[in-house]
């Protein structure tokens, strides 16, 4: 894992709640709220979140124009609402570069970012941009298109070099692809977030057992 995320309790509390974030949205709110609806969380996945011994803090970095954020954050919002075990605070990326720079995606300030923190604000795990499986699927989709229509390789250099007709055709493919993979995307996001929570549960279990052991000094005595 990258360096531990650093934030104080006061700073965390200064972030927006999920509802406050939605209220301040000036772009894509309809799309955002549409992505909250029309799908169900698998009960087994939800149970993993409900099983948390203590609620977790989740710091979010996002911006309302962000396409990936418009997909991923409503999923986190649903998990928080239905489990009652996630306390979300949202910070706008461009207003909080010090927070963002703790979560770089290589050289990029990719969003959304979800940082899971325990009650003492110690990092338990983080989610950046989108699941790796979805990134791979997008890359595969691009490769399949290039194989079927080699003239679209111009987009590998720059879409600005493509004709208007080619750009329209590619946008048609992108929209079809996105609608096709929406259910898979939700499953994969939930799976990635569940893994972070399962790790937190496991860590909690181990620390509870270890707490029952005699301390090393008692053992030596």
């Amino acid at each position, binding site marked *: 894992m990258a360096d531990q995320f650093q934030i104080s309790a006061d700073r965390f509390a200064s972030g927006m709640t999920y509802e406050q974030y939605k209220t301040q949205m000036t772009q894509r709110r309809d799309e955002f709220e549409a992505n909250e609806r029309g799908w169900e969380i698998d009960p087994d996945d939800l149970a993993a979140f409900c099983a948390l011994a203590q609620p977790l803090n989740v710091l979010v970095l996002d*911006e309302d*124009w*962000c*396409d990936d954020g418009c997909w991923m954050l409503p999923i986190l919002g649903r998990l928080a609402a239905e489990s009652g075990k996630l306390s979300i605070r949202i910070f706008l990326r461009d207003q909080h570069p010090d927070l963002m720079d703790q979560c770089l995606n290589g050289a990029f300030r990719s969003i959304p970012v979800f940082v899971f923190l325990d009650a003492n604000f110690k990092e338990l795990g983080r989610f950046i941009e989108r699941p790796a499986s979805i990134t791979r699927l997008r890359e595969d989709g691009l490769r399949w298109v290039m194989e079927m229509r080699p003239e679209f390789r111009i987009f590998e*250099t720059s*879409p*600005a070099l493509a004709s208007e007709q080619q750009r329209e055709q590619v946008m048609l493919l992108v929209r079809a692809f996105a609608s096709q993979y929406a259910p898979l995307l939700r499953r994969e996001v939930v799976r990635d977030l569940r893994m972070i929570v399962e790790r937190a549960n496991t860590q909690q279990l181990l620390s509870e057992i270890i707490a029952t052991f005699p301390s090393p000094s008692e053992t030596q005595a």
Partner: protein
Amino acid sequence: MTRRPVKVVITYCTACGYESQALELAGALMRGLRTELASLELVPWHDGTFDVVVDGELLHSMLRDGGFPDDPDTIIAAARERGWG
């Protein structure tokens, strides 16, 4: 030699929120090139793009060059070079 107006295409990623950078560059090119500009096309795109093409030549690519163009004057000067007929 006479000057021929140039065609500029700016492609920007809407998912990354690059609208303001695209508008800023477009404004600088409009003010800097004035009638030396035959057309200026703004193309909303995705995948982290911020590219500038002048008369079919890729002058700046976020993927290739990284980031945004350093200075609109560099694009203006390059566009003027291509406009000499």
